[in-house]
């Protein structure tokens, strides 16, 4: 990824649904984030290993490795992950520190506020909220 501005925080969107990738890209870029995208669990793992984003928005159900495998791998990178799932129960199961979930369909305001919270919590240099 070449054209990352210094101030822009890069978020990786991992979803096998191109429409969702598109709409997320619109929403996040509209909020001032830089967005990269991938369509599989393998893709998000590989991309994170190569060049870790500040946050990953991860679809719970994608081709490739299962959600838990993907999450376990991503945990090593300490990148905060926001899981999106159509099924609340699946999403709930993923909750660990540094992780949040939202249920589809995602409300854009919730999306952005959750991302903000995750980024602030995960950014060790930033002062921790009480």
């Amino acid at each position, binding site marked *: 990824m070449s054209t990352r501005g210094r101030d822009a925080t890069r978020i990786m969107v991992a979803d096998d*649904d191109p*429409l*969702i990738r*598109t*709409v*997320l890209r*619109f*929403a996040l870029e*509209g909020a001032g984030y830089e967005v990269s995208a991938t369509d599989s669990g393998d893709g998000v793992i590989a991309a994170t290993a190569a060049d870790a984003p500040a946050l990953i928005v991860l679809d719970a*159900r994608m081709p490739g490795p299962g959600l838990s495998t993907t999450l376990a791998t991503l945990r090593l990178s300490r990148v905060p992950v926001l899981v*999106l799932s*159509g*099924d*609340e*129960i699946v999403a709930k199961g993923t909750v660990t520190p540094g992780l949040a979930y939202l*249920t*589809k*369909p*995602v*409300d*854009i*305001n919730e*999306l952005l506020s959750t991302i903000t919270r995750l980024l602030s919590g995960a950014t060790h240099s930033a002062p921790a909220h009480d």
Partner: protein
Amino acid sequence: MTDALTARESLSRFGFDSLFSGYPDPTFAMDVAGTIIDCNEALLTELGTLSGSIIGSPISSLFSERTAEAASAEFAARGPSRFAAELLRADGSLLRAAIVLFPVELDGVVTAIVGFAHDIEAQDVTEVIAARGKALERMAGRLALMGAWTIELSTNTLHWSDELCQILDFGPGEHPTLEQAFALHPDEDRLAFERAVDRAAVDGTPFDERRSMYTATGRLLRIRALGEAVRDRSGDIVRVQGALYDITDQFDAIAQKIESEERLSSMVDAITDGIAILDTEWAYSYVNPRAEEILGQPADHLLGRVMWDVLPDWRGTEFAIAFKSAELERTTITVRDYYEPLGLWLDVRVYPLSNGLAIYFRDVSEEELAREKSAADEKRIAAQAALLDVARDAIVVRGLDHTIRYWNRAASELYGWSSDEVIGSSIRELVYLDVETFDAATAATMRDGAWNGETEQITRSGERLIVDCSWTLVNDDAGNPDSIFAVNTDITARRSQEERVLRAQRMESLGTLAGGVAHDLNNVLTPILMSVQMLALGEDDPGRSELLGVMEASVKRGAEMIRQVLSFARGVEGRRIEVDLNTLLVELESECNEALADNVEFTLRADDKLWRTNGDPTQLLQVLINLVYNARDAMPDGGGLVVAARNVTIDQSFSSLTHLASPGDYILLTVEDTGSGMTPDIMDKIFEPFFTTKDLGQGTGLGLATSAAILRSHEGFIQVYSEPGKGTRFSIHLPASTEPDGESEIDHSADVTEELPRGNGELVLIVDDESAIRQITRTALEAFGYVTVVASNGNEAIEFCDSSPGSVDLVVTDMMMPLMDGAALASRLHSAHPSMPIVAMSGLNTNGGIVRAADSGVHNFLAKPFTTGELLRVVRSALDGRSQH
């Protein structure tokens, strides 16, 4: 030789004794001195006495005093005579009888007198005597039919007496030669006779042969020839002499007598039966054609030959025993047995004769086989009937005219009529509602031999049944259709069970399908929702903003429906704690007050002594609220809504009626409205997912389906009763969690009334991650005088306590919570607010849990599930403990 012996010998030699022993009328014999030497059974029976008291007595003893003298006088005349006299019975009564006396002569000398008596009480004497005259004449003739013969061995010449000549149709003095005489016998008899004579001539062996013999005119006679050797002074045998008499009539008479007796006594066609007569040596002296047939030997082979020799297989049989017994005991013996050598079942009656036995044979093979078959049939039928009676299916055998022939116990139970009530009546009219189906099925059974199918039937009480029928055409032995054997299985319950299972399966697959679709639908909705929201952000035009708002709301409602579908598809898992439904009803009431319009009159009928159930209060409340909302929607113009709760015990009969519940104690909740009601076909479907009567977009069609699923998971069930235009009643049965007894009811009623410790405005902080627990605890505490605040986790609790120190009088906390558990919270609170009592609630009722709670400063423990009373007591005691400190 005494008179008696002489008399006996002469009777025997004439074969006369055998005649009268089988004679139907009372008969007796006397020697020349007038002493009774023998009598027949008929006389003993008539006089009611035994032979021992008669034989040896003078003839006069037979008669009454009044007639004895006359009888003696008749006897003294020693000629044939007939007279009337009175026989004296043993009991002293008298029998008026016609008496016939008949002298028996031997060699011209009267040696015995035979007497016959005939009961004439009902008849005129002369009439009887006339009727008997013929018989007397025959006897007189017989007595004449005896002659003497002599063979001079030196000259080998034969001499016959005149009587013998007459018997054999020779003129007086017309003596045949010895060869000619022998030639009168049929071949076989001749040889036997020649041998007998030869033996007598050679070694003096006497003989008594019963043979056949032709007369000069060609008549075949049965004769009896007695012979003995006569020796000279030096002991040499010089001649063989003897007597010969015609016994043809004798055997005919006996045979006739037996035949007629059999005909009369047994009504059996005696003509087809065999009769044989054995002499004292048990040689055949007479066989009728049927006896020949049965014995498998021609008369020629049998006559004169000892039974054992002709048919040695008779030895050791039941028949042989009967013969011996009859002879020994002088009684008639009947035996029926299988005779192996002939392969026949024989019914044999043996009549003792004084000089042998009369045997009556009847081939009863067919009868026996039939009897065996029928016995086997009966046994089989009995066994089958026993089986049929234990069968759970109704088994009905009906004739081709539909009349019921057999009706087993299960049929009685199923249909309500006993076997006695229905045998003979028409099954068609009795239980079949749809006789056309019945007739068609019957026709199919007649055509194909069997039919299987379902019919609708009706019981005595009018209950309609769906019955699975298995009918089989039964043929009789001749192969003609005789009856229909029907096995009817009541599948009414099974059918509704099947329907329920099918419905459950349908719901399950619908749920699975819906779950899959819902998941993808969320992916569809996501871009729409986000796009709409992003568009709305930059939109200044109020009209366009409003439209985007409509789109957003619609997407969100769609998302909500998907959430419900998913939760339905996943099934309902909930907690199981003891639930006081009264508490739930209180919550429901507050919910209803907000939700119901003023024109709906809400009535709550709770029961103080209500049992408890184990369940998830949140889910149960959801079910009740759902029903209330449905009721509300059914009454757009207002009406009445009654929610009631009471205890019920479901017994076996109700249980089997509904097929939903196992017997036991239940809490029955009813939600009844006066709304629009439902038709039966709608009622059938309301528990199916996605079925709704509400307008598109107003209901998900999952409310009742989910409710039913929730109640099933509680081992309860929901039923509906509705009448269009009148209203609807939903009934919910929830199993009572504790065995209700008088004590618990009293305790419970005490809980609700003043006996429970009350609060006095103390502030209680309730900490639990489960909102339902918070709500229940809160409701209970507030109802008893406490003020409450709630927190859903440890951090919130600490924050509240720190923010307003000293305001919280007591904390009730759950021990099992995410992030910070109850022990950690208690520990933190205890260190910060040491005087504030903490009550720990936990479902983990183990010692470990309590110890750990104590370590963290908790001294009051409340085990879940707890009752309101327990809660209040523990809270009170914890507060009082603090005040005592």
